[in-house]
């Protein structure tokens, strides 16, 4: 069945092309070889410039990213320093020797109230 259809279609295609005249559009403007060369050169130049622009743009983002990363690293170091300072200031020995602690009195024995 499929073989039959296929042969019919092939016959139609042959019939269609036989009875028509093919017409090609011809431009009135003629470009010489020099113009062609110049145009191709121009296109290559434009493409090159586009590539360079994009590459430079990407690189400029790299510098931006680097700046941000440096800033993050600085802030991170600063945060760590503050944490260390906090740990030193809240260390039990520091607290015990602080002026506030020295001014405190010893607690008495706690009294418990039965409910």
């Amino acid at each position, binding site marked *: 069945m499929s073989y039959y259809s296929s042969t019919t279609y092939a016959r139609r295609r042959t019939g269609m092309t036989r009875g028509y005249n093919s017409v090609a559009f011809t431009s009135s403007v003629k470009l010489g070889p020099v113009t062609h060369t110049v145009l191709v050169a121009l296109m290559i130049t434009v493409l090159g410039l586009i590539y360079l622009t994009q*590459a430079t743009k*990407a*690189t400029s*983002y790299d510098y931006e990213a680097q700046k941000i990363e440096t800033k993050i690293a600085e802030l991170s170091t*600063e945060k*760590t*320093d503050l944490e260390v300072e906090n740990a030193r200031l*809240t260390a039990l020995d520091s607290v015990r020797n602080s002026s506030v602690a020295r001014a405190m009195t010893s607690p008495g024995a706690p009294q*418990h109230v039965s409910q």
Partner: protein
Amino acid sequence: MPFQSISHSRIRMLIIASVFLMAVFVVRLFYLQVIEHSKYSILADAEQVKRLTIPATRGEIYMEDNGTPVKVVLNETVYTMFVDPKIITDPEAVKDVIREVAGGNTVDGFAKLVDKKDTRYQVVAKNVTRRQAELIKKKELAGIGFQAVVRRVYPEGTLAAQTLGFVNYDQKGQYGIEGRFDKQLRGKDGMLQSVTDVSNVPLTIGNRNVNIPAQNGANIVLTLDRNVQAYTEKALSDGLRKIGATDGSVIVMDPNDGSVLAMANFPTYNPSKFAKVTNANAFNNAVVSDPYEPGSVVKTFTVATGINTNTITPQSTYVNTDYITIDDRTITNATKGQTGTISIQHALTWSLNTGMVTVAQRLGGGTINRQARNTMYSYFHDRFHLGQMTGIETTGEVPGELIPPTAVEGNAVRYSNMSFGQGMNPTMIQVAAGFSSLINGGTYYYPTIIKGNLNDDGDIVPAKQKKPQENVINASTSATMRTMILKARREFYAGNDRKGYDIGGKTGTSQDIVNGEYTFDETTGTYIGFGGDTKPKYVIMVRVSSKGRALNGGDHALPIFTDISNWMIDYLKLQPKG
């Protein structure tokens, strides 16, 4: 025509020359780009592609503080300051600024180093802080540089030094948690491979960039409570000073889950100044690494074995003559005079060796035969876990020694000695964990110092704990043991206890071996006990010793226990009975 001919000839020459020149270029370019491609490609990569290590941050260590994790080990970035004397233009200004800003961190004779014009690198100050470095940089003096160094910070000083350990100059963890969990704390360095510019700024051009982020080390939360640890160390230090002893250790545990609340050792050291330690013993955590004969504290284990096997009750009696003979050896009581028919409770309270040997004999039906020894070993080793590693998560744990009855040395004399704590070498952690099972209802919890890991959200991911061993003794035996140990303390030692609480304990004194022989001139004192309200909330074990000193449990170790115990009652906010 001649002109045209000349003109054409010149053009031709020009064309030929141009073509030749271009051909030279083409050939050269072909040679460089195609034939020598790989060579120049390698050279370009070496110049442009940089491999940078992204260092992982070492994990921090936390302790508990009333249920809140607090940092006790951190990282700090400090700077090593160096100069290049050859390019220093104003040496006096450089010296002044170093003296003014980093005066406390300078190396000896730094001024002379600045003047060494024939050298290019001289370290002039170490451990300079970021703030100091920034102040110096602001002066914009030529010839000064800084190198960042990450160092470990122990803000609590000597607190729990043996448990924490330290990080050496090669950034390797040594001893304690730093040593045991070095790999986890260290993390994994990352890697950045990228084309860089002249300033080493990574650029996204190129197709071989690699960015593997660093995996920072795990943040470990310990079960140690900072306040309990600090008070325990203070009590130990004060107690040793009062009795003039040099060495001591204390462990405080929660008997209801095996978590260690404090482990203190003396002498101690500051992990930040580990290089200044002259006695390497200070690095060791004696609680886990120094097995010894704990003496009479083991009597609680013997009595528990007897009661749990229905061999004895606290009211069981025996005739005490202050000595007892096993094979060719005569064992005597340290405390004499309690002769006649007395109860096992009496023997425990007065710490009579003969009573414990009697219990051991009754386990075998009257003699310390193989059956008695097997039963004792089964309880001491398999149930109370004496003489074997507990698996505590720190370096240096040793199994100690408990001779099995199958060994030649595991004879009746050995087991009679073991019944009152001699002839065996467990560690403090083993005794404290086993003792906890005696008084907590009969469950053996493996001791632990790791609560878990702190994740990035600040939540604790609990550590996987070993499954506890239940029913090492019956709940009723455990209740009986609590009562017996309470009585043992109340008879002599409860005078300074906070009233209204259940505080029990047992003394222990053991002879040390000097020149290969036991001596009474040098003894180690031990005290182990528990405290709580409706149920035991803490177990404290104290050990004191000193070269050439005869120290005992009742006079020397017990006061330290009492001091810590009374403080624990307040700290845990326990309500008194009645």
